[in-house]
């Protein structure tokens, strides 16, 4: 089942008198349960595409349909509401709220949804258990390591069971050992919880854990099937 349809999306920036076009008439389909990695050189527009699909950046032209809703047409307020119930975002720099404990950080997205306190508690506990941080629930971000912080970030992204989990360089700030743990965790999120994942990375090894690997070059997408060298242009 197609979850996300990116249709003829173009993104342009003005840089003085020059116009930069990192994405030019891009098309992409993401299916339910996909784990998709987006690779490309710095400035290739991979994070921009991810942010547009996550509803935090605007397209210059084109459409992005998520479960049939064209999110490019939503107002700022409606888009915020849509993000609350449809997107879980994993940041490169974790972006935890420093004054809140791990438990409270994970609980934050649930405060935006209609849910009883008991249901919230249950979901937070499950999410923290999924990232193996139950014993750190009362710890503040400053009391945790980078890897633990990122696991809290993952728990926060999945706690509301979003339609889509997006991760922008989730291992970019981590050492090799922790990177491995986080990638394993993301694989579990996809395989065991059945969540659809979009991950931006510049790390080839990291990208290989994804089911689909997309490369962005000169504003165009090419897909490399896992385990083969075959390239496909993903025009819808």
């Amino acid at each position, binding site marked *: 089942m197609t979850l996300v349809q990116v249709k003829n999306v173009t993104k342009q920036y003005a840089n003085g008198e020059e116009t930069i076009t990192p994405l030019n008439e891009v098309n992409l389909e993401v299916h339910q349960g996909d784990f998709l990695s987006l690779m490309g050189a710095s400035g290739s527009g991979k994070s*921009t595409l991810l*942010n547009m699909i*996550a509803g*935090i*950046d605007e397209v210059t032209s084109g459409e992005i349909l998520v479960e049939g809703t064209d999110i490019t047409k939503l107002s*700022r*307020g409606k888009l*915020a*509401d*849509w*993000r*609350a*119930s449809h*997107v879980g*975002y994993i*940041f490169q*720099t974790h*972006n935890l*709220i*420093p*004054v*809140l404990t791990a438990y*409270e950080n994970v609980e*934050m*997205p649930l*405060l*935006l949804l209609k849910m009883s306190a008991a249901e919230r508690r249950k979901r937070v506990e499950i999410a923290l258990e999924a990232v193996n941080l139950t014993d750190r629930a009362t710890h503040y971000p400053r009391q945790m390591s980078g890897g633990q912080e990122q696991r809290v970030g993952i728990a*926060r992204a999945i706690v509301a069971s979003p339609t889509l989990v997006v991760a922008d360089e989730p291992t970019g700030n981590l050492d090799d050992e922790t990177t491995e743990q986080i990638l394993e965790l993301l694989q579990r999120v996809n395989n065991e919880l059945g969540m659809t994942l979009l991950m931006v990375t510049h790390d080839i090894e990291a990208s290989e854990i994804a089911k689909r690997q997309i490369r962005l070059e000169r504003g165009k997408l090419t897909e490399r099937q896992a385990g083969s060298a075959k390239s496909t242009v993903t025009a819808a």
Partner: protein
Amino acid sequence: MKTLPWEYGVRNLFRRPTRTALTLVGLTTVILLIFVVVAFIRGLEASLAASGDEDVVLVYALSSGADIENSSIPARTPALLAASLDGIQRRFDVQHISPEVYLGTRITVAGTDKKGLGLVRGVTTAAPLVRSKMQIVEGEWPGPGEVLAGKLAHSKLGCREEALSVGSTVTFDGREWRISGRFTAAGSAFESELWCPLQDMQTALKRQDLSLVAVKMAPGGSLADVEMFCSERLDLELKAVPEAQYYASLQQHYKPVRLLGWVVVWLIAGAGVFAGLNTMYGAVVGRVRELSTLQAMGFRRRAITMSLIQEAVLLSVGGSLIAALVAFLLVNGTAVRFTMGAFALRVDSLAVVIGCGTGLVLGLLGAVPPAMKAMRVTVVEGIKAV
């Protein structure tokens, strides 16, 4: 719209304790200064308002302008008024007419070498009949060579309150006077005066005349009757002014002082807003990434703005409460000298409303522009901000 949890705003205040504490001290100081200025204005207004009685008419010299101190009227004026007017308040066959000598003079308090400028009123036992708010709170009515000290007389003289306790002495016009008692007068200007027997004062001053006659009118008695008397007795050169009007004119006299007070309130509040703005800009600039993360999660800009305002308002409310407490404990009732006597600073309900209200406005004005600035940063830029 879903708002951010209350705890988020509260805990943010403790994120940088030193900065929060300094901001709190700054806000408290600003609000306390506003309390002091408002208490000054309110105290001055209350003192002058309480001094005028609607039923009392002051009769004094036509030539003295608006200043009773310079007035000199014949000693027979009270008797002539009593004989000529029907509308004077009368009880047990005693007419409520108070002949008085009013004088500003140098007074030395026993135990000090310093001479203070004090206000002395020579009165008879009719004075309390006319000045109905006057009440002896300690000691007794002054006999020969004695004075009754008003509650704030010490402030006017610039000495400690104990220096004017019953039994102490003061010296003026070459005579030593024993303090026989103390009186209050409902916060009016009389409280900063010393009252002594009229005859003793006239003897000490070698004066036969009076400064004024205060007449209490009976219900139905008219000012017009007193004015008529003054205009018919041209030989006496008198004028009649309702006491309330007399003090109202003095209020006008102090209008620039009050106006200046309000200007000071505005200036202090303005400085407070800039201090608050500076603090909040500093607090918000360091949190751009966090605020953008909240937006990425799905919190609306308005909810985040409200949370930032909540933080600033919590701080300003804290400052307001501390300032109000300090104002009640240390400022309220503090005596202040002014040319007409002394008055007590008054932290009344209006002062609380203005002081705490200004504090609240400081919080709001200090938070809104930085919050709006932070919300102008796009989420994409913000989540990667350092």
